[in-house]
């Protein structure tokens, strides 16, 4: 632990003996009502993170069912109907229930602390945004026990499979997605209002930590595309229950229209899940390289470019749907362009490492693994952009490999990096070093065993979303399943590390990491319930 021995805390606060979450809560309701009614950004952040972790495990159990069935060729454990429900629910839960709320939870905790604000700008709205989520996802999960089963049409729910041919529970799925969407929009409004209005005096936009910047841009993306999702699921609702024919060809509708609308939401959505990850990594790497982020301004511009381009690439998900040639070309070129700002980011991270003074604490391990493995996902993304080649890649395990590389060792590793980075601030204790390292290495090995062979299975011809497969794919699938079980089991270790860290461990000072510079490290660890009630004295770094 010698490597992160910090300087003396520059305490603006008296260290409290009672610990962060409990401190100052005497006037507030206790027990369950405290959590139901809380308007405190730290408590709501904690709720979001616990919710997200719960969903991560539920979605993970679904993934384990999928991988157990695919361990060998043949149908052994589940029937195809249920298998399709598992792939659908796994995707929906992980995207809307695990990854997105985790980033919102981190934003709730850290955005006010990083900009020197006393709380989120709209605390009651914040409470409402969170409590919509358990309702939404309980409803979604309840479809598993409804007659006809849960949604079974994939997380992309293409019509007419999700309308005319869908199980009766689809209406509940639509309502739950509406609730989750409202929650996201309200959360995004809150984050924008907080960042634009509550920065410490003297903090210009270009002084904000990259995590705050990426979240600001993400929030605008959310506000732009969540209504599109709401629109498309409302059209589904009307098709299913009120006899309209938006997506029903027999009634003059257009099934391909569904895909245009869905991916106009869906592509920005995938950046919603990765931009905050970029922000976390851009904060962690400089800390443990003990060196300022290289190219701060170009990082901001690259993030904004990616966000803008994300509105112009949606039909690369639809290269084989029968688009006209000009559309194929347009979307191929625009998609290839995304490699440029993304490349700039990777180059900037590596140049930040160059001639730094690098140590390898758990947050840094996850951040470094993020850079390597996200880049591998970026490479397969570049390959997928080549439209003629996509006629072979499309809807195969190559695509599954691609998006899991950017989402699991991408988004999820960044979230874990963030959790390890900020746990000392949240709990006042360092996470147990050995256990954290075990968690990291088992996760890295597990994640690569799981997702790397998928590239080969896909290239060799294995389509996505099949419950059984031809014999030539058997070896790849067995390795993938073993990797998945390892990865899944390793996450139990993560829970243990977090619980252990909440309950005790090596005490962390205010500035828990030697190279950490942002404002959150000026408040005590654990952070008291109320921080920055008077704005901090912010000294911008000279650009």
């Amino acid at each position, binding site marked *: 632990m010698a490597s992160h021995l910090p300087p003396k805390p520059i305490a603006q606060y008296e260290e409290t003996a009672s610990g962060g979450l409990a401190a100052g809560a005497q006037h507030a309701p206790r027990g369950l009502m405290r959590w139901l009614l809380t308007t405190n950004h730290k408590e709501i952040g904690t709720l979001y993170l616990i919710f997200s972790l719960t969903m991560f495990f539920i979605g993970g159990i679904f993934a384990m069912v999928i991988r157990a069935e695919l361990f060998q060729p043949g149908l052994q454990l589940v029937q195809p109907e249920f298998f399709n429900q598992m792939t659908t629910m796994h995707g929906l839960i992980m995207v809307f229930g695990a990854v997105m709320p985790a980033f919102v939870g981190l934003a709730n905790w850290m955005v006010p602390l990083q900009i020197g604000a006393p709380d989120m700008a709209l605390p009651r709205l914040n409470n409402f945004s969170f409590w919509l989520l358990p309702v939404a996802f309980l409803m979604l999960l309840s479809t598993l026990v409804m007659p006809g089963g849960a949604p079974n049409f994939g997380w992309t729910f293409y019509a007419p499979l999700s309308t005319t041919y869908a199980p009766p529970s689809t209406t509940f799925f639509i309502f739950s997605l509406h609730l989750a969407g409202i929650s996201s929009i309200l959360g995004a409004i809150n984050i924008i209002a907080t960042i634009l209005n509550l920065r410490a005096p003297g903090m210009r936009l270009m002084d904000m930590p990259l995590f705050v910047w990426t979240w600001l841009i993400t929030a605008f993306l959310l506000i732009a595309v969540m209504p599109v999702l709401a629109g498309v699921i409302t059209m589904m609702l009307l098709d299913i229950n009120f006899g309209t024919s938006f997506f029903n060809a027999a009634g003059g509708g257009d099934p391909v229209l569904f895909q245009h609308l869905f991916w106009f939401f869906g592509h920005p959505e995938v950046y919603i899940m990765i931009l905050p990850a970029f922000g976390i990594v851009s904060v962690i790497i400089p800390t443990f390289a003990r060196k300022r982020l290289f190219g701060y301004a170009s990082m901001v511009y690259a993030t904004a470019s990616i966000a803008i381009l994300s509105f112009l690439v949606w039909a690369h998900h639809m290269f084989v749907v029968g688009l006209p040639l000009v559309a194929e070309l347009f979307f191929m070129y625009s998609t290839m362009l995304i490699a440029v700002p993304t490349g700039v980011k990777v180059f900037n991270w590596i140049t930040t490492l160059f001639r730094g003074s690098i140590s390898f604490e758990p947050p840094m391990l996850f951040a470094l693994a993020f850079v390597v493995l996200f880049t591998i996902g970026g490479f397969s993304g570049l390959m997928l952009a080549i439209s003629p080649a996509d006629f072979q890649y499309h809807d195969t395990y190559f695509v599954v490999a691609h998006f899991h590389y950017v989402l699991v060792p991408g988004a999820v590793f960044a979230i874990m990096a963030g959790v390890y980075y900020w746990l000392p601030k949240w709990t006042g204790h360092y996470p147990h070093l050995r256990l954290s390292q075990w968690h990291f290495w088992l996760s890295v090995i597990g994640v690569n065993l799981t997702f790397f062979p998928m590239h080969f299975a896909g290239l060799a011809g294995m389509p996505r979303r099949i419950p059984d497969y*031809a014999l030539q794919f058997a070896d790849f699938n067995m390795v993938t399943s073993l990797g998945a079980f390892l990865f899944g089991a390793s996450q139990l270790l993560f829970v243990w590390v977090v619980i252990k860290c909440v309950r005790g461990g090596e005490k962390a000072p205010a500035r828990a990491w030697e190279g950490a510079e942002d404002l959150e490290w000026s408040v005590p660890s654990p952070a008291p319930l109320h921080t920055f009630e008077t704005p901090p004295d912010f000294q911008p770094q000279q650009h």
Partner: protein
Amino acid sequence: MRKRLVLMAAGFAFTGLSQGVLANGWNMPVGVTDVSREIHSLHMIIFWICVVIGIVVFGAMFYSLYRYRHSQGAKATQFHEHTTVEIIWTVIPLLILVGMAVPATATLKTMYDASEADLDVMVTGQQWRWRYDYMGEEVAFTSNLATPRAQIEGSDAKDDSYLLEVDEPLVLPTGRKVRLLLTSDDVIHSWWVPDLAVKQDAVPGFVNENWVRINEPGIYRGQCAELCGRDHGFMPVVVKAVEPEQFDTWLAQRKEAAAQEAMGVDREWSREELMERGEQVYGTICASCHQPDGSGNPPAFPALAGNQALMDDREGHVETVVNGVSGSAMPAFRSTLNPVEIAAVITYERNAWGNETGDVIQPSAIAEQLSD
């Protein structure tokens, strides 16, 4: 000594990797059409570009991680901006991308030129089979999964073409340009054969176009690539490519057989004949939803065995099979089954699994209803 060992290990790893990765079964197939070869070479070019960039980027990263370790007393040098460098690493990737876009555009243009085809085949996706219609030739048939249930459930050993075998493959001539017109009767499917580098969605209400000119005779196997419901994984595509003369002979035989079947409509069929034919049609068309024993899968797929309402309503039964049930998964079979098949399958359903109506539906009656 240690260095040499490391080098040797790295050498083995690299050759092993490149052989392994490039070997058949690990990589995209080169395929048997000019287009599939072009796509394969595009794939390999972009792959090697990524490998080279990866070596440079990760090399620089791991060098920095090793060289500038805090534990080795490295002191950070504070620098955080360099406009020239940032312009260079924006422009170079841009140039690489332009270099990649040029051949990709050319290939795409070739793939989109389905003009001047020698043969048109309509490919219709149905849950969960493909229907092939040789347009203008009066030859059409459905192609169903041929893998026995026992192999899927594990009671029999799986054969080599497990899940990639059909009762009747799509037969195509080599050397001729075949235009594929794709559509669907129900949900979106996607017709894919890796060796032909054709993957095209079959969308209900739309007709998509693709084409193929196969260079070598052989059997090429693929699958439905777009999630289309329960048996999406059990919807293989098999293309049998034969020499043109052989193809012409085959087509003539199929035409003859189709004409024979059409004549059968007018004659009186016995109950036994209809039951036998009906069982076969039921097994390939209906059983995937309504189950081999007619027990169905409610609520989406009602039971037929012991379905009293259905047995009491003979006209309704015929109507359901002929015209489908709108807003449900039950398709209209008026254009995909011929009158003999429709009459046989309804006769079968009304007299199997304990249904004892004794009804015999004649093909001629169905033909009359269809012509109304």
